[in-house]
């Protein structure tokens, strides 16, 4: 089978990477990585700093052209699809996104309609409906006229998620969506993601730093080390004392979360 032909997936796959090799700034980061993301799943990419998880996310979202292999979105080679069409099916929230200070929440979220309206057409009824929906889901309707820099960190992150939701893409890739937020806002963002996944059947791929949050909110954990996948499966299978020693270089106890039974790790010593 050649890469140009459309894949015929057996399971419902939203996204598939086939022997993907990616470089960043001239250095190879990821070599021959294959993975597939099922529709309506929440996948967490975890790994220590420099393990290549952000690079993989960028590759999956066509931000980095692969020098070998390919990424398939709904069975099509992503880099051969018109970029606006990709944006209708896949939204990415990069780490530390930037916007002008004075931009209002409404103005920011409206940008999410670009994939649908293009550069010149006016916004129509369904565009405004999508913006309303995105603001409601993120509980920002009341703040739509507020400048972005007057919001709290949690609200600001919700505004960026609203931008991605306004795209109406069924697949969302988020790079460390909880970094720099206090713990309440972290849980709030993750609960929103879980809710959108359960209620709307949206597919999520998250890069997360916090292993316990990844274990608690994701269906599937993919652990990366030095540009390769070293563990992949349900959180209870992936999160092991062995993995924490080999990949994260810490000794830890693995326990069960007293509230919902998800695995929890308690690191106690760096190796």
């Amino acid at each position, binding site marked *: 089978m050649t890469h140009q032909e459309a894949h015929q997936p057996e399971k419902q796959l939203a996204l598939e990477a086939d022997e993907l090799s990616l470089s960043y700034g001239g250095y190879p980061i990821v070599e021959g990585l294959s993975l597939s993301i099922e529709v309506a799943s929440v996948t967490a990419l975890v790994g220590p700093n420099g393990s290549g998880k952000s690079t993989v996310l960028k590759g999956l979202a066509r931000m980095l052209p692969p020098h070998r292999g390919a990424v398939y979105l709904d069975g099509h080679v992503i880099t051969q699809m018109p970029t606006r069409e990709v944006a209708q099916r896949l939204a990415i929230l990069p780490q530390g*996104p930037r916007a*002008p200070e004075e931009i209002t929440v409404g103005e920011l979220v409206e940008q*999410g309609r670009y994939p649908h309206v293009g550069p010149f057409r006016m916004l129509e009824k369904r565009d405004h409906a999508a913006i309303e929906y995105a603001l409601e889901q993120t509980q920002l309707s009341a703040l739509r006229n507020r400048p972005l820099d007057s919001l709290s960190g949690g609200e600001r992150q919700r505004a960026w998620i609203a931008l991605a939701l306004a795209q109406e893409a069924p697949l969302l890739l988020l790079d460390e969506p909880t970094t720099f937020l206090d713990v309440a806002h972290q849980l709030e963002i993750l609960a929103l993601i879980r809710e959108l996944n359960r209620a709307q059947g949206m597919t999520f791929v998250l890069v997360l730093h916090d292993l316990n949050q990844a274990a608690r909110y994701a269906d599937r954990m993919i652990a990366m080390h030095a540009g390769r996948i070293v563990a992949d499966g349900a959180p209870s299978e992936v999160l092991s004392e062995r993995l924490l020693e080999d990949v994260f270089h810490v000794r830890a106890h693995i326990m069960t979360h007293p509230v919902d039974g998800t695995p929890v790790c308690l690191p106690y010593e760096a190796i």
Partner: protein
Amino acid sequence: MIQFTGARRFQAALILSIVLLAALCILHISVGTVQLTPAQVIASLLNRPVEPYDRIIVWDLRLPRTLIALASGAMLGLSGAILQFIMRNPLAEPDMTGATSGAVLGAVLWLASASGGTGDPGVLVPWVALLGGLVAGIAIYAASGGPAGGPTRLIMTGLLISIMLRSVTSMVLVIQQQAVGSAIGWLIGSLNGRVWVHWDILWPWAAVTIPLGLMSARWANALQLGDMTVKGLGVPLGRARAWLFFVAIALTAGAVAIVGGIAFLGLIVPHIARRIVGVDARRVFPLSVVLGAALMVLADIIAQTAIHTVTLPVGAVLAIFGAPFFLYLVQRSRA
């Protein structure tokens, strides 16, 4: 009806600034050696003159100057707004495209070479200047790495090549000193001696470039976000930035080819527009067009009336008021 923040504010600001512009235009036509009243101006414009002489003054001498001020101000205001969006830098201005210094060099080279020979160089100057501006702007885009180069590289390349072009202009004038007299207006920007011939060159250019700029507002909005977000939205980042940069070059070169190297207007106008209507390019762009026109007309009124015996170059007036405003901005941004 969908509610838009500040939509009312935008409409009000646009209408008010159009009214202000109209009033300034009438005032602009009325000033000069023969002082007319606004009523006389309006009567003459409507071809119902009190005196046939007024009609000649208004239509043959003053109206072209007013129209040129209006159109060139609008173009520079819009060009500055576009550049501040694509450079993500509130201190960007039309000069950074190289189109200003390129057009000025073109005009000066032409004047210098013609002053050695015979014949009137006048009519062809704008065309040579336009060509110089376009070539310099495109050269800067290419030298900054084209679609691969980011805003910072574009700014740095633009600044450096502009400085180089200005040095070449100075050298040309040192070598051909008899051209200094005719070149001075091009160096600083002036509306003196602008007549219908110039308007005939300017208006078709303005009629094409201004709508192109206004149409590109959504791309400009997207470009304010980080590169990853822009690409993730499916915006062709390199192409969008190149397109807007070319529109800015065309606007700047067209205006400078007729009025010379006006500075500061393109810096100030988008700031005022953003203060009033926020960061949405669909509002900032149209308002920059109207405010740019109004500021140019206002500056030229001052240029004609400040000193009784001479008409100053409008570029000098803009620079005198523009530089302190620039300083004010720099200090405010540090606070």
